[in-house]
């Protein structure tokens, strides 16, 4: 039986820019993390898999078929893009409803499915509000909800954790695991290894458009632990938050900035857990988390040496 996603010598270039170069991948596991720094080619790979791009060279097959303009494949795929773009002036419900109609659902089914999808991501209360009034996390939920309608067998989530607060991330991890438990094959792209590690053991590392490594997270993580990871935490109480971290052994350095602190840690897992507990204690204290690529970059540097 052929793998769900199979790429052979897959290359894609835009003018003189090579986005993907000679990629050979076979993905079959329930959840796969597509890992690489920004600009590595993760989104290009996903768009090739969705049939939004045609390969410049090589081939990609989804469920054994070429995906470009292939409705049989499209019917089995869900996609949550990285970017926040929605139909102008629409509500969350309307956005999903119209996409359901484009899917081919009749009015009644489109309504029921949109409501159920909003319910699934707990957006029922706000689903009739304009998307412009949503927080980043709510928009992310709506994007995921639209990807789930039509009951896809293969789900692509492009940087789904971007902009989510610690609790939102935690819920996203659980959701992805739950979807995998329902029999869906999920491909999650991220530039942060620790995010991926929370949800899967199988990763594909892409760097500069080429496949760097494919395999278990643990093996890659061993490489990363040699380098401290930088985490920027947005907060209005930078000093209070800094006090919590400065005493920790795992923290190798800490910088206080305007409305944020930059923590460099040798034990990111511990730091993330600590962030979670702080967020649960005081939801106002942490406004956002951004992880730098530095650590991952170090691994890529190490692997490409």
């Amino acid at each position, binding site marked *: 039986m052929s793998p769900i996603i199979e790429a052979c010598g897959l290359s894609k270039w*835009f*003018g003189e820019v090579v986005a993907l170069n000679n990629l050979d991948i076979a993905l079959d596991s329930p959840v796969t993390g597509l890992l690489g720094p920004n600009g590595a080619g993760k989104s290009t790979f996903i*768009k090739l898999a*969705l*049939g*939004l*791009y*045609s390969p410049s060279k090589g081939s990609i097959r989804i469920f054994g078929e070429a995906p470009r*303009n292939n*409705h*049989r494949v*499209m*019917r089995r*795929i869900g*996609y949550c*893009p990285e*970017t926040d*773009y*929605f*139909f*102008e*002036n629409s509500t969350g419900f*309307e956005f999903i409803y*119209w*996409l*359901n*109609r*484009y*899917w*081919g*659902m*009749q009015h009644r*089914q489109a309504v029921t*499915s949109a409501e*159920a*999808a909003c*319910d*699934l*991501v*707990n957006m029922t*209360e706000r689903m009739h509000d304009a998307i412009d009034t949503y927080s980043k996390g709510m928009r992310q*939920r709506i994007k995921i909800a*639209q990807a*789930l309608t*039509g*009951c896809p067998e293969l789900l692509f989530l492009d940087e789904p954790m971007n902009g989510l607060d610690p*609790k*939102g991330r935690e*819920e*996203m991890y*659980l*959701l992805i695991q*739950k979807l995998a438990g*329902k029999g869906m094959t999920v491909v999650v792209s991220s530039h942060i290894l620790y995010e991926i590690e929370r949800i899967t053991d199988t990763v594909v590392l892409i760097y500069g458009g080429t496949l760097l490594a494919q395999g278990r997270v643990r093996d890659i993580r061993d490489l990363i632990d040699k380098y401290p990871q930088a985490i920027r935490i947005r907060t209005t109480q930078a000093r209070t938050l800094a006090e919590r971290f400065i005493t920790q052994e795992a923290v190798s350095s800490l910088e206080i900035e305007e409305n944020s602190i930059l923590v460099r840690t040798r034990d990111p897992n511990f730091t993330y857990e600590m962030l979670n507990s702080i967020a649960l204690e005081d*939801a106002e204290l942490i406004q956002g988390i951004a992880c730098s690529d530095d650590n991952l970059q170090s691994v890529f540097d190490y692997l490409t040496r």
Partner: protein
Amino acid sequence: MTSFINDTQTAAGMNITKEDLFFRPDNRPDHSSYFQRFSASCAHAMSMIARRKRLAVAALIAFLPVLVPLALAFFSTSQFAESGNNVFVRLAEDLHINVFTPLLALFFAGMLIAEDIEMRTMIYILTRPMPRSAWVLGRFCAYIFVASLILISSAVLTFAASCVHSNLSLMSAGDIKLLLHYCGVMVLGLFAYGAFSVFLGAFTRRPIVFGVILFYGWQHLATLIPGLVDFFTIKKYTTAMLPLLATQRHNPVIETVLGNIQREVFLVGMPKALAALVFITVVSLLLTIYATYRREYASDRAAGG
């Protein structure tokens, strides 16, 4: 803070959860008909157009000619009294057909596809198992409905207002026939200009700019240049569709002698003009549909990024 994932809720007396229902494979819509997707695209476009300020602005501009016959009646003295027929014909030709028809096409049709490319909502639509032709034609149909409604309402009101002058009556079958003839030409113009505008929207990043240059710059210039260049305008064919009396009266202020001769020699008859307008509409729409299958709209370059 509410949980991202909804609690499992059981249906009364059954072990089926809402999530189970949502993820049931038979929740996936059946193969729906082409017409269903076409009507979904049409209905969505209508709902989007209805919410735009652009609609109010377009309607406001299109209804301005209604005031002209009334103003003429109010200000003119009896010795300079205008014939109602003359007033209506001049307004219908000079404003409704030559100015407002291309304007409404650019206002609405030009952005039908371009807006989704610009706002990057195209990727949601392109990942749905939907025939691109149903999407394009559905949107085009919505534009035709809205633009025709505005333009014909304005023409009918202008006709009614022109009846305050002599020589035009709402009760005269001949005059009503004249009105219907002009309305027909307007609709044909909306088809041709609209289809060409949709094509511009699918192929260029600045459909409005190109449209203004072509419709208001090139078309005017082409009628002044001697030779056959005016065959490459839509205006030539809409003008050829006008009632004979009106075309005889048509007298551009600036003309070259040679250009005038050429136009006399190469006058296009009504059937050929109709065929030309249908040809422009069909070819433009086919090229647009072809573009939506071939172009890679998901790339930043296509989106203007």
